[in-house]
C-alpha cells in the first residue's frame, strides 16, 4: 500500500465532477453536484439515506450513468452526460478506480487469494505468479495472509471487508471508492476495517468514502461533503463542518447521528 504515487501532489484534480444530475424515473436523486478530488485527498460523503451520496459515488466509476453533468479525469477531456456516454468513457472511469462495497460482494466460489488476483490475472493479464505474490503481500498487510485459501463465507464480516479492500488495492487504482464499507458489520468489527482505511489514507491513497462513521470522517477526511436531498448542502474541513456547521440541515443531521435518542435540537 505504500508505493502509491499519489503523494506527489499535482495541482490538477484527479477527478472533477460538475453539475452531476441523476434521475430514476420521476425521482431526481442528484440535482447538480460539483466535486473535485485531488490526488492524495480523502473525501467523506455524509448525509441522510436517500440524499444521493451512494448514487454520486457510483456515478464516479460508471456504475450509474448520470442524466446530466460532466466528469473530467486527470485534466483529460470531459465526459458530458448530456449525451449518452461512449462505452470507452465509462470504462476509462472504471479502470482508474476500484470500489469497496457495503456488502463486500466477494466472489463466493473463489478463495481469498483467487478473489484478489481475479482482476489482475483475468483482466489486466498480469502473470499469475506475479499477481499472487503482490496479492499475498497486500493480504499480509491487512493481517489475512493465512486466510489465502479460505472461502469468503468462512471469514468474519470484518475479514471479508478487508479482503474486499485488498481486492480493490490489487488493481493499483488511482482512486479508491468506498460505499458504506462498515454499515453491514457488527459494531465490534467496524474498527478493524476503519483501521485499514486510515492506514491507506495515511499512505496517500486518494479516497472517496460514503460513510456514517462520523468519527472516522472527522479523523481521516480532508474534506467532508454533506449531501441532502440531492445537493451538497455544505462542504468543508471536518473540524469546521462537525464543530460549527453553518446550515441548519447539517446541524440537525449531525445531532440525529450523535444523539439518536434526543428530539430535534431546539433552535
Amino acid at each position, binding site marked *: 500500500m505504500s508505493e502509491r504515487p499519489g503523494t506527489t501532489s499535482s495541482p490538477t484534480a484527479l477527478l472533477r465532477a460538475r453539475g452531476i444530475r441523476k434521475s430514476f424515473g420521476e425521482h431526481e436523486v442528484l440535482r447538480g453536484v460539483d466535486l473535485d478530488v485531488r490526488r492524495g485527498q480523502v473525501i467523506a460523503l455524509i448525509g441522510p439515506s436517500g440524499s444521493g451520496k451512494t448514487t454520486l459515488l457510483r456515478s464516479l*466509476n*460508471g*456504475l450509474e450513468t448520470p442524466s446530466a453533468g460532466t466528469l473530467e479525469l486527470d485534466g483529460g477531456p470531459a465526459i458530458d452526460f448530456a449525451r449518452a456516454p461512449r462505452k470507452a468513457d465509462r*470504462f476509462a472511469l*472504471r*479502470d482508474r*478506480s*476500484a*470500489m469497496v*462495497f457495503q*456488502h463486500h*460482494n*466477494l*466472489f*463466493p*466460489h473463489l478463495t481469498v487469494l483467487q478473489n484478489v488476483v*481475479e*482482476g489482475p490475472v*483475468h*483482466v*489486466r493479464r498480469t502473470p499469475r505468479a506475479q499477481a499472487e505474490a503482490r496479492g499475498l503481500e497486500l493480504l499480509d498487510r491487512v493481517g489475512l495472509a493465512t486466510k489465502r485459501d479460505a*472461502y*469468503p*463465507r468462512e471469514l468474519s464480516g470484518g475479514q471479508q471487508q478487508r479482503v474486499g479492500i485488498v*481486492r*480493490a488495492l490489487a*488493481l493499483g487504482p488511482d482512486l479508491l471508492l468506498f460505499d458504506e464499507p462498515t454499515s453491514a458489520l457488527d459494531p465490534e468489527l467496524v474498527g478493524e476495517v476503519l483501521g485499514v482505511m486510515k492506514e491507506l489514507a495515511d499512505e496517500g491513497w486518494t479516497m472517496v468514502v460514503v460513510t456514517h462513521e462520523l468519527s472516522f470522517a472527522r479523523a481521516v477526511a480532508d474534506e467532508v461533503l454533506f449531501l441532502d436531498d440531492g445537493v451538497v448542502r455544505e462542504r468543508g474541513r471536518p473540524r469546521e463542518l462537525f464543530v460549527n456547521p453553518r446550515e441548519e440541515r447539517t446541524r440537525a443531521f449531525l445531532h440525529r447521528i450523535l444523539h439518536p435518542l434526543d428530539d430535534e435540537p431546539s433552535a
Partner: protein
Amino acid sequence: MDWGLFSDSLWPIVHRGLVGTIPLAVVSFAIGLVIALGIALLRLSVNPLLSWLGRAYVSLIRGTPLLVQLFVIFYGLPSLGVVIDPWPSAVVAFSLNVGGYAAEVMRAAILSVPRGQWEAAYTIGMPRATTLRRIVLPQAARVSVPPLSNTFISLVKDTSLASLILVAEAFRQAQVIAAATSEFMLLYLEVALVYWVFCTVLSFGQDRLEKVLERYV
C-alpha cells in the same frame, strides 16, 4: 416366473442400457446443455427480438410431446429430403428437447446470482462475457445442479421412446426378447428394474456432486 429367462435376458438388457441408453442420454444431455445456455442467454437479452426468439423456442419445445418431436425428425424430415439415421435422429430430438427445459433452469439460476456480483466484476474491469463465464455461471451452476439432475434422470427414462425409431437401447432389447418369448410381464418388469437401478445410481452421483459444490456459498 421364469427365472431362467429372467437371468438369461438380464445381461442383454443391461448391456443395451450401457451401450445404448446411457450414451444416448449423456450425449444428448451434453449437447442439450449447450443449446440451453444459448437459449437462456437469448431469453435474458435486452434485445426484444432475441428475447422473443428464446421464449418461442422454449414454448415450442415444452408445448409439444417429445414423441412427436422425435417422429418429426425421424419420419417427417425424410419427406423434405433430410434422412437421418436412428441414433443421430434421437440425439437431435433429445438435445433440442433438453435445450428447452434446461434453458429455463439456467435462466432462473443466472438471475439468482446477486446483482452485486455483476457490479463487483464490473469494478475490477471485467467485460460482460468474462463476468458471465468466470463469475456468474460458476455460481449459477451450483444452483442448477438439483433441477438439472432431475432433467437428466428424466432424459434417461425418456430415451426409451427412441425404441420407436428403431434405436437399439435397453427397452428395445426387452421388446425384442418379449416378442420372441411372449413373456411380456416378465420382460417389461425386468427392464423397469434396470431403469430403476440406473436412475438410483445417478441419484447417488447427484448427491456427491452437490456435496462437492457445497464447499462454498
